[in-house]
């Protein structure tokens, strides 16, 4: 049986851990609130954007813009993976990375080259261990990012696609469904024909005056649309990260409580056993003297 001192040390240790996990839970919930407001602020922009694109794209076909062109032969696939920079958020990062890995491996099996864009330290660390080519890595971006990051990554993806270095682009990120539920999602961003189908449903009012032409406007809108999608992926991932961390830390705090309880029980038992043993000694000694 463990000594009294050992058990006491363990209890102290668990209690300290609990303080940390509890603090992390609170920090995560504060950050989650921030991240959620950012999503909410972004939503009007994104909604309006889809609406405009829907209006314009109704009449457009593949020939209008290089980003709409679907290539017959896909040689290179670009995969952008967004994860958090830090761990301690349960299976959140692992889920995203597994999803991205599977996609990359499937594409590699079909004989396509895979290029990876890693946003977030965890994605980078995971993909560094593989043979896939990492084109871009942003290790400490997730804690503090704005639209500029999305724009710069988006530009790189667009440039790659137009120059023919990439024939297909996927974005893998953690979609934020609710505080309790986040799922890894694989979104095919380019070519755009694939994603656009559902945006056009809103239908256009059609009688707009366009300046410059519809084509000219599309040429401006489409690249931005990519950036909007990238930004959304970043925002969602950061929101999901904090939610996942909150849940993980909540579980840890509860586990600490359970552990303290069972350790205290053990402590008391050990203490009582020690007292009993002492008493037996004294009684035994007294009996021996009497005799």
């Amino acid at each position: 049986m463990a000594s009294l001192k050992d058990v006491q040390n363990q209890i102290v240790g668990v209690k300290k851990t609990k303080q940390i996990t509890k603090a992390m839970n609170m920090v995560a919930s504060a950050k989650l609130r921030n991240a959620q407001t950012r999503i909410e602020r972004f939503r009007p922009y994104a909604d309006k954007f889809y609406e405009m694109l829907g209006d314009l794209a109704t009449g457009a076909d593949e020939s209008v813009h290089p980003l709409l062109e679907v290539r017959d032969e896909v040689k290179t696939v670009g995969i952008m993976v967004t994860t958090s920079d830090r761990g301690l958020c349960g299976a959140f990062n692992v889920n995203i990375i597994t999803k991205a890995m599977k996609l990359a491996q499937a594409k590699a099996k079909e004989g396509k080259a895979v290029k990876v864009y890693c946003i977030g330290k965890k994605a980078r660390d995971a993909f560094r261990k593989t043979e896939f080519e990492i084109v871009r890595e942003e290790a400490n971006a997730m804690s503090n990012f704005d639209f500029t990051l999305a724009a710069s990554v988006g530009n790189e993806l667009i440039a790659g696609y137009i120059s023919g270095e990439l024939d297909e682009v996927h974005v893998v990120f953690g979609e934020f469904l609710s505080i309790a539920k986040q799922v890894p999602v694989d979104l095919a961003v380019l070519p755009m024909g694939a994603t656009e189908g559902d945006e056009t449903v809103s239908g256009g009012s059609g009688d707009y005056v366009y300046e410059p032409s519809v084509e000219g406007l599309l040429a401006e809108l489409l690249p931005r649309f990519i950036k909007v999608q990238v930004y959304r992926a970043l925002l969602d991932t950061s929101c999901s990260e904090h939610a996942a961390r909150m849940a993980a830390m909540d579980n840890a705090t509860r586990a600490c409580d359970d552990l303290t309880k069972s350790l205290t029980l053990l402590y008391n038992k050990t203490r009582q056993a020690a007292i009993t043993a002492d008493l037996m000694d004294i009684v035994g000694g007294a009996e021996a003297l009497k005799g």
Partner: protein
Amino acid sequence: MANTLKIEIVTPDRKVLSEEVDYVGAPGILGEFGILPSHVPFLSALGIGNLYYKQNGKAYYVFVAGGFAEVNNNKVTILAEVAEKASEIDTARAQKAIERAEERVAKAKEKIDAARNQAALRRAITRISCQTSGKSAGTC
């Protein structure tokens, strides 16, 4: 016939403003255009420039860089990647950006992206002029 317009400026990070105004002048990619109430539905790409609107006889200025303007039903929606009200512009930062851009041109040995540099310079200059106009109109 309505005699005011609603203007809304949104960027990816926030809603910059939402107001009832009398007139909107915006920097279209093909040149500036003005919008009065009861304008036909209109959609245009925006360049880098100063947008201004009139409200109760006063002109207010907003810096915008890249984006779109949609006019429909007496409502002007501006979707911009960057938009700052004249009063929010950090002129010191813009001044520094100008210096940086000029420095890059001067040190032409250094490999620079001329188009990008030009755009940065234009953004900075426009920001400053935006605040100047806002100040002279007494709304900033």
